[in-house]
């Protein structure tokens, strides 16, 4: 049961506009490209051998997050139950009593 207190009213906001989303994403992608480029321009001080791999942090972060989601998706199949999984038995007893 979703007990919302607010009123419902759908109208277009600033971040609903497709041009705003498009430009926001363009700026975001540009920053990502810049950060990738910087990796080849500056000399990073490395403390471990693995950091010597070009664009190590970029690749590692991206792959880590994708891996998290892929594993989590499988985990959900194993772990997901209905919303009131733990209380459903008590709810049934309560309903019977009523």
């Amino acid at each position, binding site marked *: 049961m*979703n*007990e*919302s*207190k*607010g*009123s*419902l*009213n*759908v*109208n277009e*906001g600033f*971040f*609903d506009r497709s041009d705003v989303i498009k430009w926001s*994403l363009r700026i*975001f*992608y540009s*920053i*990502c490209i810049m*950060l*990738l480029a*910087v*990796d080849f321009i*500056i000399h*990073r*001080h*490395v*403390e*471990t051998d*693995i950091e010597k791999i070009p*664009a190590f*942090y*970029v*690749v*590692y*972060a*991206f792959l*880590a*997050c*994708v891996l*998290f*989601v892929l*594993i*989590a*998706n499988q*985990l*959900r199949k*194993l*772990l*997901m*139950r*209905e*919303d*009131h*999984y*733990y*209380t459903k038995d008590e709810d049934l007893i309560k309903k019977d009593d009523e």
Partner: protein
Amino acid sequence: MSAWIDSPIHPIILFFIAAIAVTCLSKKNDKLASIITVIVPLISFISLLQWQQGSFGFYQLLGLELTLIKVDRLSLLFAYLFHLAAFIASVYAFHVKDRVQQVASLLYTGSALGAVFAGDWITLFIFWELLALTSVFLILARRTRDSYLSSMRYLIIQVLSGVLLFSGALIIAHHTGTASITALVLNTDILNIDSIYDIAIWLIFIAYGIKCGFPFLHNWLVDAYPQATPTGTIFLISLTTKVAVYALVRSFAGTDFLITIGLVMACFPIFFAVIENDLRRVLVYSMINQIGFIMCAIGVGTEMAINGAVATAFIHVLYKGLLMMSMGAVLYRVGHVSAAHLGGLYKSMPKTTILSILGLASSAFPLFSGFVGKAIIMSEMIKAGHTFGWLILLFAAAGVFFVSIKIPFFAFFAHDSGLRVKEAPANMLIAMSISTLLCITIGIFPSSLYNILPYPINYSPYDITHVVTQLQLLFFSALAFVWLNRKNLYPPELRSTNLDSDWFYRKLFPIIWQFICSYVFRTSQHFKGLMTKIFDLTLITLAKYSKPDSILARGWGVNTMLMWLLCLLIFVLLFNYIQ
């Protein structure tokens, strides 16, 4: 006696007196009660600034010399943190007119302060249990059936932690003759534990582990904290786990096993956070992740690593508190924090949206507080030779930022849920702004925090490599979030229950118990039936042989009697001879 006179006034006295005063106030004085809850941490903090290092308030109990107050840089830092957290949380809860919550929050803060100043295990135990008993009211105050059930589970687990601590403390006190809190050496070679002293250390370690949220002992956090009131959760996330972190730093710094535990804690909650729909629960999972980082640092145990652990704990209270406050504001206004049914709230709660985004930035971005704390831990992991551990932590750092994006994204943006609510109350916005300001101040001027750390520190997190690599890590985690969402690979937000370690005691153990009970019942019924049959058979047999002229009804002659008597005497004689 003179020790008592010389000792400073313990903050717990101030907090407890304030709690009594708030209890006595009538319903008309709601504002005054709120003012007291805000002012008390301030007064206590000013008093704390005058404190000198040393031990005070000695007393005797159970034949042991105990110390109520032990002041050093470590305990002072945590005391500052708890005052700050209590002040911010009280401002956040200023609109609350519920006496239960006001009194509980004062007593809870006082108990946390009592725990960090405790100089011995017994005093620590007393405040450890008080933490449990006072904080449970912040969950109960939600006044729903789910919160009631959660609070009971919370209380049982917390009290169990206290019992383990007390048992361990008594054994150690008996073994060493003193109950003073000292560094302990954990014997991780479990198969070769041969002394009760080693077992006592394990008991204390597990007691701390429960409060810290070690893997498989963590579930009370994700069960109870999201069930607390919007304002109560801010106190909860700031105090209990941080008291446990403090206790671990005191006794288990340099315990290698903590690194393994920390790495598991840093990673596993992220998987759960990805599929979790309740946004406050997502924050609790990410809190466990951050405690994982802290555990690793405590495990490394060098002075610098301890500085990193304590700094991260300090900063974590501020930015996690900020994110939790933003979700508390949503809960207060909307009535739930289910990601599946939120979205588009930036239109009606723009200020909360900005503060929430700043809270997210504070968790890791340069110029914000999160950046200056975790950097020390990462650096110390490499220095200590834990390169694999460092890689895991890097993995977890990317992951936790990745899942934290879903907090502001699903609540304030994503699809428009059509919900139109009022902006958060002014006091909530002020509290969130104070936290934001502190996060930015610490981020820009890290020395403001570094100077009060337990050990001298000469470290600057701002070098080009560190800033660039951190930005790469964060932006490409965000890129993964965008890409996965656009490709519809990100798990959809669904109202559901995800099984966690509480399944063992909420489902499996009851099933096993039910099975045992029914087995015992069936066996007893079977046994009862068997006994009845034997009894019946005996009666029938007796009846059969008791009929007139039957063997048992016949009269016996004197000769027969004498023969049996003779047999008996021979038997007694033989028995005595054998003996």
